[in-house]
């Protein structure tokens, strides 16, 4: 009896410890976020730092994002045509592709790919910098690692994400155009005019807002996981895994919250 009781208590203690740990990490992440904001004046004075990081996060993610956008658009057009033609409205295929891409898939898939392509790289890089004591060396030289390492990467990620989401949506629409017009034979004029009649400018600005929020979330998670990683090979690998998992979950959760605000 006492044995079972102690086992239950041990289980509860484990749960409590994990919950407390997560709350501690959340607070530490928020603290790093505000520290990044306060220390980001230096990287605005030296925009070259941001440009350099934008090359590694934005430009390097370009190919994976453009190629997947093209395929996503083509698949949307194929699937949409399959159902729409049953109701004799295959001209609305442009509306379906554009609305799906602009409202949801553009920002969300871009953020997921970004977390996988750029976020993991950031986490691993900063984790290794920490493991090899480069961050401590910077502090020794009176260089603030947050303003020199974290802030430029943060702003590069935040700026890259909306650009990438715009490109994703546009290339996706072009992919849908290729399948709908060239392969299936939907009328070009109907494809574009129906799209323009049903996609509002608000949808485009909402897409920008969504991708900005996702940019902040994904980049901050990646940076914090790297900054917080135990300075071992195992610690860095775990941190990289956590970056992808937490980024994906928070992007999808934030997407629900943002969408419910925008649909009012």
């Amino acid at each position, binding site marked *: 009896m006492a044995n079972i009781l102690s086992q239950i208590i041990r289980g509860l203690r484990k749960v409590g410890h994990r919950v407390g740990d997560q709350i501690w990490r959340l607070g530490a992440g928020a603290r790093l976020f505000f520290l990044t904001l306060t220390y980001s004046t230096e990287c605005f004075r030296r925009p070259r730092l941001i440009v350099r990081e934008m090359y590694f996060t*934005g430009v390097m993610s370009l190919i994976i994002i453009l190629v997947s956008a093209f395929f996503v658009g083509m698949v949307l057009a194929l699937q949409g045509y399959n159902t729409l033609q049953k109701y004799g409205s295959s001209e609305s295929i442009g509306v379906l592709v554009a609305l799906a891409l602009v409202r949801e898939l553009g920002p969300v898939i871009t953020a997921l790919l970004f977390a996988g392509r750029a976020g993991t790289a950031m986490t691993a890089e900063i984790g290794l910098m920490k493991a090899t004591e480069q961050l401590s060396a910077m502090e020794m030289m009176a260089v603030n690692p947050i303003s020199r390492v974290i802030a430029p990467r943060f702003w590069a990620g935040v700026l890259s994400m909306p*650009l990438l989401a715009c490109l994703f949506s*546009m290339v996706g629409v072009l992919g849908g155009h290729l399948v709908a017009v060239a392969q299936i034979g939907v009328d070009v004029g109907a494809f574009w005019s129906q799209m323009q009649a049903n996609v509002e400018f608000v949808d485009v600005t909402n897409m920008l807002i969504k991708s900005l929020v996702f940019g902040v979330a994904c980049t901050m998670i990646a940076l914090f996981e790297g900054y917080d990683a135990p300075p071992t090979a195992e610690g860095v690998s775990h941190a990289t895994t956590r970056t992808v998992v937490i980024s994906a979950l928070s992007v999808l959760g934030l997407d629900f919250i943002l969408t419910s605000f925008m649909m009012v």
Partner: protein
Amino acid sequence: MDRSTIDLWVGVLVALGVAAFFALATKVGNLTASKLGETYTVTADFENIGGLKPRAPVKSAGVVVGRVDRIDFDTKQYEAVVSIKIDQRYAFPKDTFANIYTAGLLGEQYVGLEAGGDDELLKNGDKITQTQDAVVLEKMISQFLYNKASESNSDNKPTELKPEAPAAKSTELGDVPF
């Protein structure tokens, strides 16, 4: 990697992104189409607006001439008051007829304006008096059923009177020639 090449590539990314944004705004979205110039506002009372929503198009002869600005409820007459913004370029006579139509079978609803013949034109703040409500499907179906029922009632009566009917007819026929 040389620094200037990095700058070049980031520039390419930014240029492509901004171009994609403008393409989305103008080609995919309807930033240019939805822009009305100077507008004037008129109101119209409807007993039932169906599924009409703010920002719905206002069309005349199929051409978009304005947009629904807002929809209010008049608690004195229990009617919907629809404010319509019409582009200044298009003037309509005072006795213009406002209908609520549905685009396609299940499409969105819009306001259709049919110009009348009055010499006076609608001004800012005027009210369109002649309106026709939205077609509510349930009303139409119940009316249809009601008509069917009354039709079948009138069908039944002659069958009951059938034995007498030929006699009446023959007297009618018989009376006239002689």
